[in-house]
C-alpha cells in the first residue's frame, strides 16, 4: 500500500471515548479507516485530540469482533451460529416464555453509554412498550446517577451548567474526585491552559494525580482526603464560607430559597464541621480547608468540575448536593467562568441520563409516576404503560438471586466485568433463563448469555451522542456495520418479532421522536446538526441553536429558585480493620478506556498492558513487598492478583489501581455498598489487605491465567 496512504473519503463524526465529545474527520481508504483527524470545527476540541481518539480505532476490525448471531440453550453449551432471523425469533420467543412463566416483571433491559441517544431511547421504549414494565436501566447507574439526583435537588437539572470553553473565564477552578488530565485529556489540556494563564487550582482527591502536579501546572491547594470523606470535607468548606460570611448574600436572596439557605447555614456552621474537627477525620490540614474555602468563595469567577470520585460513594448523591449548595451559596452559577460540571466517563453518559433509560423517568427526566407525562408517551406509542418505577440494575441482580428475575436484554454493556462484587453478579447471571447480549465482542457477560447479537461500533452507525457539556453531537456512519446492521436496526427487528410493530427509515426519525417527547431536545434534529455542527440542550424555540450556559435568570425548579439540602456526613460502613487495614480506590489511565474492551484491542495497549497496584513505599516495605512484586489483594468479598508499583501519588494507608484489564478482575473485591439515593456502587472505597505472592505461586497463577485466555474473551 502506498505510504502515505491517501484517504479517498472523509466523514465527520464524534469520538465515543469519554464525555468530552471531540469532533473527528474519519478518513477511509477503500472502505477501511486509515486515520482519525481531529476536526477544527469541533466545538469541544477545536482541532485537538488525545491518544485514544486519535489512534485507538483499530478495534473495529479486531479479529475478536463477532460477525454472526449465535444462540445456545444453556450457558454450558457451545455457541451455535445462526441467521439473524433465527436469532431474533429465538430471543423474542424466549423472552416471552420467561415472562409467561415468571411474570411480566421478570425480565428487563440495559442500555449503555456507548450507544447513541437513539439506541438508548429505543431500549427504554422496548422495555416499557414491548416488555411492558419499567425494568430499564443504563450504565450511568454505576457512575453518574448521583449527579442527576444531587443536582436536580439543588439547581434543578442533572447536567453541567457550562460549556467547556467557559473555563477560560474562570479565576478559580475546583476539581473534585476527577483527574481530567488522564480521564478527559482534551478538556484537561484546556484546564491546564487556564491555570498557566493564572487561574488558581484547588484539587480535592486522595491521590496526588497528574492534575495536582505536572510539568506545566501545580495546584494551589491539594486536599488529599481519606477516601470516603468527601461530604465531611465539603461541609467543612461550607462551614468556613458561612462562619467567615464569605457567601454571596445578594445572589442567594435574589436567586435562591432564603429560608432553606438559613437552615443550611445553621446546619453546616455547627462545630462538628469545623476544619479542626473534619481535618482530623479526613486526614487534611485544617488550614488547607480554610484556604480552599476562601479561594473558592472569593472568585470572582469560581467553577467546579467533578467526577466519579464524588459520585461512586455510599454518600455519592449527598456529595453532589454539597457541590450544588456551595456554588449557590457563593453565587457561582448563571454566567461564564463559573458553574458546576460533572465530567462524564463515557461518550454518551449525558445522553444515557437524558433519554429515559431509567426505571423511574422517561426521556427528559419526567417521572413514570406522573399521569400526564405518561399519557403523552402512551398516546405516541399506542400502548398502556406501567405507572410504577421498575427495578434498577443492582436490584435486578438481587431479584435474580431472590428468584424473581429471569431474563435480560443488554445492549453494549458488560455488567459482569464492570459492576461491583463480581461473585454476586455471576451468581445472579447463572439464575437467568434468557440473557440476550448485543455487543461487539464476546464480553464477560456473554459467558452467561443465551443469545448473542453482533453489535456495531460507533464508526458503523448513525445517530447522536450528548457530551458532558450537554452538547448533542452527530455520529455518522463511516464504514458499513461489520455484521450487517446498526444496533438500533437490530432492536427494531426484535421489537417487531415480539409483536410491537415499529418502523424507522433512518436513525434521524428516532431523534425526531425524542424531540417530540423530550422538551430539552425539542429543537434538535439531524437537519439542525448538519447545519450548525452541534447544539447544547435545552434547544427549543427560545434557543433555536442551543444553550451554552444554564441558570442565567432562573433555575429549572417549580419556583425558579435554587435550594439548599442538608448534607449530614454519614461515614461509609466500609471500614478498615486489622484484617483489611488499607483503603483501595480506583481510577483510569490516559491510554486506556474504561474496561478496555476497545482500547485493549489496539496498539494503545502497549502503553499500559496491565493494571498495577500503586502502593506507598512505607506500606509496601512493611509487608515485605518489593517494587514490581506480584501481590494478592483481598477484601471481605474476594481476592485477585496484580503487580505492585511503589508510588508517591498515594499516601500511606491508601492503594490505587485502574480497571482496564479483565484479567485483573478488580471487581471481584469491590463491595456491595451503594449510594443511599441511587444505588450507585461505592467503587471508590474498599478495605483491603495486600500480601506478596511467592514466586512459586505466581508461576502457577500465571499459568492458570494463560489457560483462561484461550477462552474467547
Amino acid at each position, binding site marked *: 500500500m502506498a505510504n502515505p496512504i491517501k484517504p479517498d473519503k472523509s466523514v465527520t463524526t464524534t469520538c465515543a471515548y469519554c464525555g468530552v465529545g471531540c469532533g473527528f474527520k474519519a478518513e477511509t481508504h477503500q472502505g477501511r479507516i486509515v486515520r482519525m483527524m481531529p476536526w477544527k470545527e469541533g466545538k469541544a476540541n477545536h482541532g485537538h485530540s488525545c491518544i485514544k481518539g486519535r489512534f485507538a480505532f483499530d478495534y473495529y476490525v479486531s479479529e475478536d469482533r463477532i460477525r454472526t448471531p449465535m444462540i445456545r440453550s444453556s450457558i454450558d453449551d457451545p455457541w451455535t451460529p445462526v441467521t439473524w432471523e433465527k436469532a431474533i425469533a429465538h430471543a423474542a420467543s424466549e423472552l416471552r416464555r420467561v415472562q409467561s412463566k415468571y411474570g411480566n*416483571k421478570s425480565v428487563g433491559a440495559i442500555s449503555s453509554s456507548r450507544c447513541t441517544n437513539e439506541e438508548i431511547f429505543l431500549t427504554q421504549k422496548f422495555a416499557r412498550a414491548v416488555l411492558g414494565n419499567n425494568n430499564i436501566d443504563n450504565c450511568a447507574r454505576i457512575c453518574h446517577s448521583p449527579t442527576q*439526583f*444531587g443536582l*436536580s*435537588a439543588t439547581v434543578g437539572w442533572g447536567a453541567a451548567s457550562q460549556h467547556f470553553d467557559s473555563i477560560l473565564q474562570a479565576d478559580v477552578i475546583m476539581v473534585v474526585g476527577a483527574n481530567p488530565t488522564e480521564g478527559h485529556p482534551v478538556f484537561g489540556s484546556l484546564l491546564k491552559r487556564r491555570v498557566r494563564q493564572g487561574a488558581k487550582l484547588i484539587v480535592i482527591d486522595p491521590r496526588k494525580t497528574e492534575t495536582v502536579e505536572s510539568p506545566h501546572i501545580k495546584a494551589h491547594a491539594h486536599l488529599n482526603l481519606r477516601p470516603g470523606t468527601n461530604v465531611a470535607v465539603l461541609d467543612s468548606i461550607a462551614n468556613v464560607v458561612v462562619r467567615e460570611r464569605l457567601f454571596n448574600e445578594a445572589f442567594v436572596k435574589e436567586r435562591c*430559597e432564603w429560608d*432553606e439557605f438559613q*437552615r443550611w447555614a445553621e*446546619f453546616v456552621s455547627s462545630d462538628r464541621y469545623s476544619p479542626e474537627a473534619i481535618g482530623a477525620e479526613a486526614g487534611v490540614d485544617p488550614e488547607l480547608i480554610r484556604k480552599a474555602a476562601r479561594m473558592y468563595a472569593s472568585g470572582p469567577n469560581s467553577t467546579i468540575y467533578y467526577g466519579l470520585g464524588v459520585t461512586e460513594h*455510599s454518600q455519592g*448523591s*449527598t456529595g453532589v448536593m454539597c457541590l450544588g449548595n456551595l456554588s449557590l451559596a457563593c453565587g457561582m452559577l448563571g454566567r461564564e467562568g463559573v458553574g458546576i460540571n460533572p465530567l462524564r466517563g463515557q461518550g454518551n453518559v449525558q445522553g444515557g441520563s437524558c433519554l429515559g433509560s431509567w*426505571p*423511574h423517568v422517561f426521556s427528559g427526566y419526567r*417521572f413514570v*409516576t*406522573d399521569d400526564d407525562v405518561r399519557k403523552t408517551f402512551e398516546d405516541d406509542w399506542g400502548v398502556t404503560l406501567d405507572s*410504577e*418505577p*421498575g*427495578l*434498577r440494575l443492582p*436490584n435486578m441482580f*438481587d*431479584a435474580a*438471586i*431472590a428468584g*424473581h*428475575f429471569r431474563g435480560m436484554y443488554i445492549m453494549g454493556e458488560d455488567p459482569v466485568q464492570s459492576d461491583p462484587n463480581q461473585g454476586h453478579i455471576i451468581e445472579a447471571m447463572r439464575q437467568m433463563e434468557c440473557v440476550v447480549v448485543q455487543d461487539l465482542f464476546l464480553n464477560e457477560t456473554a459467558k452467561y448469555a443465551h443469545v448473542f447479537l453482533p453489535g456495531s461500533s460507533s464508526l458503523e452507525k448513525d445517530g447522536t451522542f450528548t457530551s458532558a457539556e450537554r452538547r448533542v453531537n452527530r455520529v455518522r456512519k463511516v464504514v458499513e456495520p461489520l455484521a450487517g446492521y446498526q444496533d438500533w436496526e437490530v432492536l427494531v427487528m426484535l421489537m417487531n418479532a415480539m409483536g410491537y410493530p415499529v418502523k424507522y427509515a433512518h436513525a434521524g426519525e428516532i431523534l425526531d421522536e425524542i424531540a417530540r417527547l423530550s422538551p430539552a431536545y425539542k429543537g434538535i434534529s439531524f437537519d439542525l446538526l448538519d447545519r450548525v455542527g452541534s447544539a447544547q440542550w435545552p434547544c427549543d424555540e427560545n434557543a433555536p441553536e442551543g444553550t451554552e450556559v444554564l441558570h442565567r435568570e432562573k433555575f429549572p425548579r*417549580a419556583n425558579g429558585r435554587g*435550594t*439548599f*439540602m*442538608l448534607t*449530614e456526613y*454519614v461515614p461509609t460502613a466500609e471500614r478498615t480493620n486489622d484484617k483489611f487495614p488499607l483503603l483501595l480506590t480506583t481510577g483510569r489511565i490516559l491510554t486506556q478506556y474504561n474496561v478496555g474492551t476497545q482500547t485493549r484491542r489496539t496498539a494503545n495497549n502497549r502503553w499500559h498492558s496491565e493494571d498495577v497496584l500503586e502502593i506507598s513505599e512505607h506500606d509496601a516495605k512493611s509487608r515485605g513487598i518489593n517494587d514490581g512484586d506480584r501481590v494478592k489483594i483481598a477484601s471481605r468479598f474476594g481476592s485477585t492478583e496484580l503487580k505492585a508499583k511503589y508510588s508517591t501519588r498515594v499516601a500511606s494507608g491508601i492503594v490505587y489501581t485502574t480497571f482496564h484489564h479483565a484479567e485483573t478482575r478488580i471487581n471481584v473485591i469491590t463491595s456491595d455498598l451503594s449510594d*443511599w*439515593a*441511587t*444505588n450507585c456502587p461505592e467503587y471508590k472505597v474498599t478495605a483491603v489487605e495486600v500480601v506478596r505472592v511467592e514466586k512459586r505461586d505466581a508461576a502457577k497463577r500465571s499459568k492458570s491465567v494463560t489457560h483462561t485466555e484461550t477462552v474467547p474473551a
Partner: protein
Amino acid sequence: MSQSQEHSTSTFPSRAIPIERLIVMANQIAAFFAPYPAARRAEGIRNHLRTYWDPRMRQDLIDYVAGGGNGLSPYVNDGVGLLVNGGDKKGYYGPPKA
C-alpha cells in the same frame, strides 16, 4: 445484627429482592433525611420510596414494618407510615424538595 433479627429476615418471603438489602437501603435513606424536622423527614422518606422503589420492594418494606420492623431506623417507620396512611400525593415525586 441480633439473633432474632437474623431469624426474622431469613424467613421473610420477598417479592423482589432480599429483605436484608431493603433494610440497608431504607436505613441509608433515613440517615440522609435525619437532620430534617420530623414532618419533612417522613415526607422525604415517603417520596423517595414512592418515586424510586419498585412497588414490590415498597410492599415488602410495608409488610416488614408491620411485622415489627426489626433492624429498621424509626425514621423509616415514619416514612412507611405515610406511604400507607398519607394518601397518594399527586404530581411531584422528584428529588426531595427541602
